[in-house]
């Protein structure tokens, strides 16, 4: 997962570093606002912790074991911005101490493992966990899903970084100067191990650590889980009512459109024809080992010809550039509207089912009498205040 020096071009490294710097700036400000003067030792400890999490071997079924990155569990426990700083420092130490990950490629590695992975994984975790109680099984499953999605997002980002190299940087005769594999090769090469072994290892680690902390030290999660922790104790509801966060369909649709537009450069970089979209007359029959267009394809190729903007242009082919732009904007608008309508449907279904009730807390597996603990953590003061509010 760590990209060493030599696999990516210096230009790529500069771009990745430039993309990471804003995250560092925001992360440093946000973390400093929270922990104030304690930031130095606390961040250093978190960084060392992130490094150590990467060293743990994860037991997998079948007797095998694998390493995990641990970025998502760090983000769940510490918050995403603290995770950015901690993981960046851990990656720097890894690059310098063990030659694991490049120094020139430091920006690439931090963008993948300290930005993409924790943010994507945390988003998946929050999406699945919803407003469930901290002690619910759903939250443990959500942590596993978060770890799985996070490591796969990081794998995808790595595949993209490596896969664009031969397209952008090659000699006149086509010899790749850096990573020699194209996107068509790096994507499956990264997908197979990450969807199976690496994904499983990350899910096991993330879910296991969260389950332990919920059971043994819920106060450690208070800073990043204010609502669910409050829901655990009997004092829930005694404080000011917490306004539930509402994800608006318009926001989701807007985010979807922005993500699609942001990924457009990938399509522009990809060489050749789009796979599976060639018209029968455009097929390279000899290359495919065919003598004629298959009968079924011939029959159904012209099945639907009542398109609004055929071939991304106007009827007579006039103003092709304008036609292409109109097609693109129309397509984006249609996708946005469809996602928005789907969001409204989901919203209506959820509203009909009524507001969700928090799941009852499970008993703690302690040897003594079960305790209901209301834990709050005050990072600014540096004291973990745990108050036993009731004993059964």
């Amino acid at each position, binding site marked *: 997962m760590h990209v*060493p*020096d*030599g*696999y990516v*071009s210096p230009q790529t*490294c500069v771009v990745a570093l430039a993309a990471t710097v804003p995250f560092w700036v925001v992360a*440093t400000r946000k973390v400093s606002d929270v922990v104030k*003067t*304690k930031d*130095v*030792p*606390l961040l*250093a*400890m978190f*960084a*060392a*912790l992130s*490094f*150590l999490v990467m*060293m*743990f*071997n*994860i*037991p997998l*079924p079948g*007797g*095998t*074991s694998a390493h995990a990155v641990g970025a998502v569990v760090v983000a769940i426990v510490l918050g995403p911005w603290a995770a950015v*700083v901690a993981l960046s*420092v851990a990656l*720097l*130490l890894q690059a*310098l*101490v*063990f*030659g694991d990950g*490049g*120094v*020139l490629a430091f920006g690439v590695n931090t963008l993948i493992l300290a930005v993409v992975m924790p943010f994507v994984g945390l988003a998946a975790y929050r999406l699945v966990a919803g407003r469930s109680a901290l002690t619910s099984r759903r939250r443990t499953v959500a942590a596993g899903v978060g770890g799985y999605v996070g490591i796969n997002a990081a794998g995808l980002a790595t595949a993209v970084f490596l896969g664009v190299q031969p397209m952008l940087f090659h*000699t006149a*005769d*086509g*010899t*790749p*100067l*850096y990573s*020699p*594999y194209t996107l068509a*090769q790096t994507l499956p090469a990264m997908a197979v191990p990450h969807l199976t072994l690496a994904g499983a290892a990350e899910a*096991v*680690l993330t879910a*296991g*650590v969260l389950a*332990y*902390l919920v059971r*043994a*030290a819920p106060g*450690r999660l208070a800073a990043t889980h204010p609502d669910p922790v409050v829901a655990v104790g009997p004092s829930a509801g005694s404080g000011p009512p917490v306004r539930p966060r509402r994800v608006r369909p318009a926001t989701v649709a807007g985010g979807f459109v922005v993500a699609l537009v942001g990924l457009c450069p990938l399509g522009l970089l990809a060489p050749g024809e789009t796979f599976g979209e060639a018209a029968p007359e455009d097929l390279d029959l000899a290359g495919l080992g065919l003598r004629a267009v298959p009968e079924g394809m011939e029959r159904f190729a012209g099945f639907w010809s009542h398109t609004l903007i055929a071939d991304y242009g106007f009827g007579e082919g006039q103003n092709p550039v304008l036609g292409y732009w109109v097609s693109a904007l129309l397509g984006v608008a249609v996708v946005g509207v469809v996602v928005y309508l789907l969001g409204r449907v989901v919203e209506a279904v959820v509203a009909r089912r009524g507001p969700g009730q928090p799941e009852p807390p499970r008993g703690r597996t302690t040897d003594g009498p079960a305790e209901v603990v209301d834990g709050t953590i005050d990072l600014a003061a*540096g004291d*973990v205040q745990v108050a036993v509010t009731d004993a059964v």
Partner: protein
Amino acid sequence: MPSDCTRSSTTEGFVPPVRGSRPVTGDTDPSLVEAARVPAWLVAPETHAPAYAPNGQRRRRGFLDATAEQSARVLRQVVVADATAARPGLLQRLDPRTAVVAMLAVLVGLSLVHHALVLLVAWVVVVGLALASRVPPGDLGRAWVAVPAFAALVAVPVTLSVVRAGDVVVTLWTWHGVPQGLTAQGLVAAALLVTRVGCSVSVVLLVTATTSWTRLFAALGALGVPRVFVMVVSLAHRYLVLLTGVMADMVTSRRVRTVAGVRHDRAGRAVLGASVGALVGKAHQMADEVYQAMVARGYRGRTLTLRLFRFGPADLVAAVAVTAGLAGLLLWDGALG
């Protein structure tokens, strides 16, 4: 060196000598031990588990063994790197700022080279500098071999015409009459990748092996990296050693309480979750204690560092040599077309 580190980086004393276990003083570099006055047992590769269980059956290596070995490797590498940096050698006499700037310049220069032959020559020069700086083979050398070896493994498929089309120079088989095999472009691409990766990782490890961590991190501060960030990195390095010791203790204590091997089932995953979770708790607690200690020593949020740098004649020579060497390599690379 913290006591936690020295205590946990050996199992001598509580791993009984049983048949099949490796001697504690195995692959130790004697010159390193002598020169740096590091005890032999501290830098010896560690045997964490007896090869046989009490019932006489061969013990299967589980995830706890792997984690314990990994933690021991980290501690050993830190010790060896510090010992190497303390040796009298060619690059050890350089100002750390010179070393860091030269490292970055060389890495950028190497990434701009387009010919494997040029990179190979640069690699030979780097290995020569390592020998002149008395960097020992062994733990540090292992990374010099492992990373390019992995790159070579990665690069093997690209040499085949079925993976990447090109001019076939070595025919291995034919496909419908078309010769298939190793391509000129694929071989050049693989050679470029391996030499570039090998040379780059060698440069980084050479600089980090000949510059102590305190000087290296101080150089980062002197070169404009924010002081707070440098302090976080320095402390993180320090805590890494401490927490690795804690982790090694946890894993070792679990192992010695386990008669049979820890299974890779739900119980094994619970052990893993508890270990990392406990580590989170210890890290929080340790951060509190360290902060209190810092405040007691006068820390009020400002970070100050001692300036121990001296740009001497050796640095001037190194700067000129690196500049001339890089210019020569890039000119040669350009002349090759």
